[in-house]
Structures are given as structure tokens and as C-alpha cells.
């Protein structure tokens, strides 16, 4: 069953000069983790704010749990847990005071819904008298999630919850989200600029310039990738990128961790590319075939949408 339905959604700023959302359509199933993946400025925050009844759409409709975000905004505000891009906590209030405040404005208390948050809040409870401003990024994130969760919402809307948080906390965070979905059946819609987090979602939408490039499961998106993809490494990585991009066999070349991911023409051979690069004076050239990741798919889709 669909818990969120978005259709023909458009939103622009500054009297239409900036098109933030250009006609979005998608649905979110009840009880799934739906990921919105895209770089800064793709329109993720605008979309989330509309779902959280904080912005009005220019065109199109959005319904959350069967309620219209414009007409029934009051009812929706009781059913969603919204966590904005920055961890919106009161820095001068302690961990416990923050959580208890957010519980009270939703007509509940920490005790009443402790079961729901104990998995997350339990981790920071030893520091409950510490001021929120003195917490580490990972702890702030856990507190903010606890605050968004304390009133047992039907839907959690999390805007870039892992931005600015260390890799270990990021991993832990996704584990927490998965447990929430499994144990409490909460629908979670989450945005992130990190492509490597896409695999944690049930469905993802790749977003760019206010449009969806593709909506699918992570494996569906990777499976639809048809290009030949190699990872290339050499000693002088800086010069390597220029040489790769100048090579007629190479279609695209992007930096990806320690290597470059290149897509090549179908008839290209790995040995030929290695020999070509060695001929240009590169030492210790390594070319290996690899499986596409969501990021490769995103790059490829982005390029196609630019060309199209």
C-alpha cells in the first residue's frame, strides 16, 4: 500500500526563476526505506519540506498517509517525524531536556514511547545531562533521530541525516533505520548525497536538477547498467585522468576512491588500454573490470540526461 503519493509536483523559487522541482511522480510503500539520492541542489530538501507541510507546492499533489499536504497539514503534522538537514536541537538544553521537550509538544512523554527510542536513545542516555551543543556529530544525530521518533510517527522524513557524521556513525545509523522498519514498521524516507548509502534502501530515486533520473531498487538500477566499466590506476594519477579523457577509446572517466572508473567503447580491450597508457610513460598501470555501483549508474544517467 502506498503511504506517500507524489504526482506532477512542481515548485519554483523567486517567482519562477529557479526551478527546484520539475514535475515529480513517485510513490512510497508502507514500511519501506525510500532513499532520495542526489547531489546538493538537486531539490531533495524542497521535496522533503513539501512532504513535511512546510512549503506549498506550485503544482501537483502530495499525500502522506492518505492526507493532502496542503489541506490536511495539521493532521499530517501529528503523523510525521521530520528531521531537517541540520540537527535542529537546542544547543543549550541537555540531551534529556531536548527529548522531553519534543515529546511534550507532540502530547507524549519519554516514558510513554521509551520502547520505540530505547535502541537509539539508550546509546546516548549515559550522557543525558550533557548539553546538546557539546555532543559529537554522531551523538547529535542519534538525539535528533530520537526527537523525531519520540511521538511514534507513521512516517519518518529524514533530510540528509548522515551529512557531517563520521563513517562509523553513518553505518550505525543505517542499522538503526533498518531495525526501526523491521520492528516497528515505520516508513522512512531519507535523502543523502552519499551514493554508497543507496544500497541500504529498499527503493531509491536518483535525483538531479529537480528531476528523477531513475526510480528503482538499488539492484534494479545497477542491473540496468550496460556500459563496459573498468577501474584504472597508475603512479601519476593526476596526469592519468587527462590522458584517459584524451584517449579515443574512453567514453567517460571519473575519480572514484583510489582509482578512476572509465567506461569504454564496446570493442575496446583492457590490454590495449594498458599498453596505450604505458606508451604515454605511465608506470604500474592496472586495468581491472569491475561491477557498476550506484554512483557509476548515477554518473552515466547524468551524462545521458545532459546529452539528451
Amino acid at each position: 500500500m502506498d503511504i506517500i503519493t507524489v504526482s506532477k509536483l512542481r515548485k519554483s523559487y523567486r517567482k519562477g526563476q529557479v526551478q527546484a522541482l520539475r514535475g515529480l511522480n513517485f510513490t512510497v510503500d508502507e514500511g519501506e526505506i525510500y532513499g532520495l539520492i542526489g547531489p546538493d541542489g538537486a531539490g531533495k530538501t524542497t521535496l522533503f519540506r513539501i512532504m513535511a507541510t512546510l512549503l506549498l507546492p506550485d503544482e501537483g499533489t502530495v499525500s502522506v498517509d492518505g492526507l493532502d499536504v496542503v489541506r490536511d497539514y495539521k493532521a499530517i503534522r501529528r503523523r510525521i517525524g521530520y528531521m531537517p538537514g541540520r540537527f535542529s536541537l537546542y544547543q543549550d538544553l541537555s540531551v534529556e531536556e531536548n527529548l522531553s521537550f519534543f515529546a511534550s509538544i507532540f502530547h507524549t512523554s519519554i516514558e510513554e514511547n521509551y520502547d520505540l527510542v530505547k535502541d537509539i536513545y539508550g546509546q546516548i542516555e549515559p550522557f543525558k545531562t550533557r548539553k546538546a551543543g557539546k555532543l559529537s556529530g554522531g551523538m547529535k544525530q542519534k538525539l535528533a533521530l530520537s526527537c523525531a521518533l519520540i511521538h511514534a510517527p507513521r512516517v519518518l522524513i529524514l533530510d540528509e541525516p548522515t551529512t557531517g557524521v563520521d563513517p562509523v556513525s553513518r553505518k550505525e545509523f543505517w542499522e538503526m533505520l533498518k531495525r526501526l522498519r523491521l520492528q516497528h514498521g515505520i516508513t522512512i524516507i531519507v535523502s543523502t548525497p552519499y551514493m554508497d548509502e543507496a544500497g541500504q534502501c529498499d527503493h531509491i530515486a536518483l535525483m538531479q536538477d529537480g528531476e528523477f533520473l531513475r526510480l528503482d531498487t538499488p539492484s534494479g538500477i545497477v542491473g540496468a547498467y550496460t556500459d563496459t566499466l573498468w577501474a584504472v590506476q597508475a603512479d601519476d594519477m593526476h596526469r592519468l585522468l587527462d590522458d584517459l579523457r584524451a584517449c579515443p577509446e574512453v567514453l567517460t572517466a571519473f575519480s572514484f576512491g583510489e582509482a578512476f572508473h572509465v567506461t569504454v567503447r564496446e570493442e575496446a580491450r583492457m590490454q590495449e588500454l594498458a599498453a596505450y597508457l604505458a606508451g604515454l610513460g605511465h608506470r604500474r598501470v592496472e586495468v581491472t573490470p569491475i561491477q557498476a555501483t550506484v554512483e557509476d549508474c548515477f554518473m552515466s544517467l547524468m551524462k545521458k540526461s545532459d546529452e539528451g
Partner: protein
Amino acid sequence: MKKQFLSFLRKEFYHIFRDKRTMLILLVMPIVLMILFGFAITTEVKDSRVAILDLSKDEVTAQLRERIAASRYFSITAGEDNISALEASLRGGKIDVAVVFGEQFASELRRGGRPSVQILVDGTEPNQAAIRTGYMQQVLAAHLHTLTEGRGVSPFPGITPVVRTLYNPQGKSEYNFVPAVIGLVLMLICVMMTSIAIVREKEAGTMEVLLASPLPPLCIVLAKLVPYFAISCLNLTTILVLSVTMLHIPIAGSLPGFIAVSLLYILVALFLGLFISTVVRSQLAAMLLSLLVIIPTIYLSGILFPVESMPVALQCVSVIVPTRWYVDIARRLMIQGVELRYVWRETLVLLLMAGVLLGVSWKKFKIRLE
């Protein structure tokens, strides 16, 4: 709703109590201002240096001289024997006040005539000149009153001092600063602190969470205003107690009336702060806009310069300054001691301002982010 509100209110008090700078501004500033003003006033009137030119040299002028010397406001530093020497010391800043007794002072008084006495003051600082003149007149009149009373002779016509204010003959000033301090302090606290407190939520992003919650906007606004209302009341009390105990400024008119009008003024200032918070996005902008409101207030409210002596254009502008009306009411209630019904027009203006500001803010307060 009630539990939500109380919880929000507690949070607001936490914000205030945990920020030392805020606390300092809120609680210490009014006291410092009062002591500063009060101290300035007491040093002005005490120990004024007096020179006496006695052309009569009889027993009455001798008594008067002793009376002046005994007063805690004056100390006689010199006697001069001609008027030009007197003026020279006045001009040279050696003395603050000069008293000239006319010839045959005692016999003139005995005959029931009008002996002449002249008081010369340095009018460079009009406040001080007016106060010194007043004190000198009191000292002289009090003594002559006892003299004539004992003999069953009416003190009138008595003597009529001829007062001449030198260097600034038109000098006009008020020293009834207590209403002005209340007017300013409340403005600062209510407008600046309130607008900053609301805008801080926008800046920190917490407003986004509050708006996306079922919290009614009225609850947010009320919880923001109530603490500053309470603190303003506390400050009002402090200032009044200080002015009565430390500065011995009595409240001449009705105290409940004065408090009622002050509470109304606090509301006007709170709503002004609320209004500012609805038009700006950052704390810095809130502070600048508040200052932009408060600084003209100092000049246009009659605290420093009388409104009547301003150019007509500025007088018209001063009509929209709430402090102008409040200071006017407060001075009349506190210093002149008139009854509340004599200031109903000014009170009505404040009421109107409160209504308009609240209405506009309420309309502008957003239930969404745009």
C-alpha cells in the same frame, strides 16, 4: 495544549537563565542605569561652590549666609566685594552660584518692603543651574519665613529673588529621568531580546521542527512573550524601588495607575519585538532592526530633548514612537501627580499601537516556511 505550553515556557526560561550575557543585560543593566543616573544627579546638586556679595552687611544677611553655609547643597568658597569680581569668578569656573544681597536688606525687610537679592548661576549646564537656583531659593525663603513668622508679620511680600541664568538664558531641561530609564530599558528588553529569541529558532533550524509539529502558533508566540513580560515586570519593580529608596523620588500620582500604564507599554514593546521577528531571518538582522527602532526612540521620545522644541517634521515622526507617549504619561503620573483620567488620550494611543502591532504580527506569523 496546557502541558505543551508549560513545557515550552520552561524551555524558554532555560534559554534565558543559561545565557549569562542575556541575564546580565536583563537584570543588571536596569540597575546600573539607575545607579548611573542617580549618582550623576546627587553629585550635581551637592557642594555647589557659592560666593556671596553682601552690600548690606547686617544681621539678616549674616544669618542668611550661615544658613547657606549650613546647607548640604552649598559651601561658601569666597566673598567678593564687587559685582564684576563675582562675575569673573563665575566665568572662570571658580564658583557655581553667586548671591548678591542688596543694600539695607534688614531694614527694608523690617519696614515690610522688598529687599532685593540676586542669584547668579552658571547656566552652561542647564539641569544643574535650575536645581541650584531652586535650592538657593528654598534656603532663602525658608529662613525669611521663620524670621517673619515669629513676629506675626506675613512672610509676603517677603523677598523676591531676581533669578538670572547666565550663558544659557533659555536653558530647558528635565531631570525626571526615572520614566525615561523605564521607557528605555523596557524597550531594549522587550523589543531586542524578544525578537532575537524568536529569530534564534529560525536561525538554528528548530523553527522548522516546531512548525512541522502539532504545536499551535499561538503557543509558540505566547511562550516566547511570557518570560520577557515577567522579566520586564521584575525590572519595573526594581527601578521603582530604587528610585524611591535610593534616589528618594516619590511617586506623586496613583501607583496602580502608573503600573497599569507601564504594563500596557510593556505589551506594546513585546508586540513590536514580535513584529520584528516576523520580518527578519537572522539574529543579527533582528538586533540591527531593533537598534534601528530604539536609537531614534532615545531622540524622539523627549527623553533627551523636549518634543516641543523639535522641528515639526520630527514631531510628526515622534507620534509613532511608543516611548514618547509612555514617558509623557509616566512623567505626569509620577512627577506631576495627576490622575489617570488626565492621560487617557496618551493611554489610548498606546492601546491602539498594541492592537495594530499584534494584528500585523499575527497576520505575518507563518505557519509554514514561506
